[in-house]
């Protein structure tokens, strides 16, 4: 969510590919197994996706859990717009859909699902929204991409991929349900030279993916998409 600021999403051809459809599929399968491990089979788990792209991810994870353990895990969606702390920075936004599974969340292990974890403010808003719906036994966080630059003391429990980024860059998650294709792409943002990226996130990513190399890498010569060529 936090990475979606700005204009409409470009097509799958823009920016630098970070994850493809196969890698997203494998990451979700792995997260599904991690959830089963850490929650003793997922008995009390409720998956809540944060609109827009957290919702199809939650649905897919529920499918993975059902495949692995043949257990039906309830899933739903949790819109956090009305709880955001940056509402006054932009015109009023349309609300996403909130749908809590019929069993509610009291006493359950709620796993929040989102596409990109960035500042952590969306998750903060989600925690506030949860407390108005009920009292879960525990709340965990699953994200497809953790791009660093946290502004709040929040960390994910399940991560598809740690992706060291510069603050100028934009991470775009595209999903078949919403965008027709599964992909994660890194776009060089329209950043101004003075507003250079924040401190690189140390040790967050796999070896060989130094954060400082990212901005240069992402500017592919000749790949001038609308966002990529805007500097």
């Amino acid at each position: 969510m936090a990475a979606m600021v700005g204009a409409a999403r470009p097509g799958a051809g823009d920016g630098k590919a970070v994850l493809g459809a196969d890698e997203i599929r494998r990451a979700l399968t792995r997260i599904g197994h991690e959830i089963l491990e850490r929650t003793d089979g997922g008995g009390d788990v409720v998956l809540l996706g944060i609109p827009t792209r957290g919702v199809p991810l939650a649905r897919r994870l529920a499918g993975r859990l059902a495949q692995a353990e043949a257990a039906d895990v309830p899933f739903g969606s949790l819109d956090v717009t009305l709880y955001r702390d940056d509402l006054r920075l932009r015109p009023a936004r349309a609300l996403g859909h909130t749908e809590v599974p019929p069993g509610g969340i009291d006493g359950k292990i709620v796993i929040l699902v989102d596409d990109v974890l960035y500042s952590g403010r969306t998750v903060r808003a989600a925690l506030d929204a949860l407390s108005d719906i009920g009292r879960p036994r525990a709340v965990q966080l699953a994200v497809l991409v953790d791009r660093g630059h946290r502004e709040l003391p929040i960390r994910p429990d399940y991560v598809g991929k740690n992706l060291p980024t510069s603050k100028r860059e934009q991470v775009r998650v595209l999903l078949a349900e919403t965008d027709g294709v599964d992909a994660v792409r890194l776009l060089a943002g329209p950043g101004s030279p003075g507003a250079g990226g924040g401190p690189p996130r140390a040790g967050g990513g796999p070896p060989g993916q130094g954060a400082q190399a990212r901005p240069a890498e992402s500017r592919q010569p000749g790949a001038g998409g609308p966002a990529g060529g805007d500097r």
Partner: protein
Amino acid sequence: MNRHLISAADLSRQDALDILDTAEELAGLAGRQIPKLPTLRGRTVVNLFYEDSTRTRTSFEVAAKRLSADVINFSAKGSSVAKGESLKDTALTLQAMGADAVVIRHGASGAPHRLARWVAGSVINAGDGTHEHPTQALLDAFTIRRRLGRVDGLRVAIVGDVLHSRVARSNVWLLHTLGAKVTLVAPPTLLPVAVGSWPCATSYDLPAVLPVSDVVMMLRVQRERMADAYFPSVREYSRRYGLDADRLALLPGHAIVMHPGPMNRGVEIAADVADSPRSTVVEQVANGVAVRMAVLYLLLGGGTAGAATGDDRG
């Protein structure tokens, strides 16, 4: 979305759909353990009511409180208005108190329009004279959409005292914007002279219109505005333009009966019709809170960048 909500005619189709969609989501939150949202914390909403109203004022108050706004009720009785303060002076007082939104009901058509020039916050028209009552039209459209699944293409009959009805005016414009076909049904004396310029059809014959209507909206006979004799007797009006069980049977099976309230049972609507399952009167009141929350959120929930730069959106 404009900064104010003065007239349903100002709403584009997209504005109206945004409000209805937002209201739909907000209505879904009403059943939660804690139905209160933190969205408008620190904002002040003033209810400025120069005419008596229970349901509209309460509905706005509940809506604002559900969104955590502070609500100040300012009714003409018992305030400095009773001592002769002008609307403009009252407006400047509210301005000085830092009202982020003023919800105004006034007996004079156009009062909210004037007020909008005097205050920095948003002005929401809660009924001005015989002009408009846009949030009522929005909640009616919302109720129609919830019951029948859509508004586009539906045939809506609005029956009764159209001349004095701000509800009818707002509904004609909003339902037209949303793609419905509106027919006004009233005695000739209770249709405004300019009705020919409105985007709707007219008829004097209720039994002929009912079989081809998906929605019938009965208007209250506003006795307090009836200084002149618009019809010979209440009894005759009721026989020609009232909705009783026999006329209800003329409607298609799926059709719904609406009334903005308060009802004159036995005049424009028979008691058994008002209490029938096809009547949406109670739903309309419940939906009013969700729709008014949506309006307050869309007007006040966003950024203040526009207000800070002198506002170019109004």
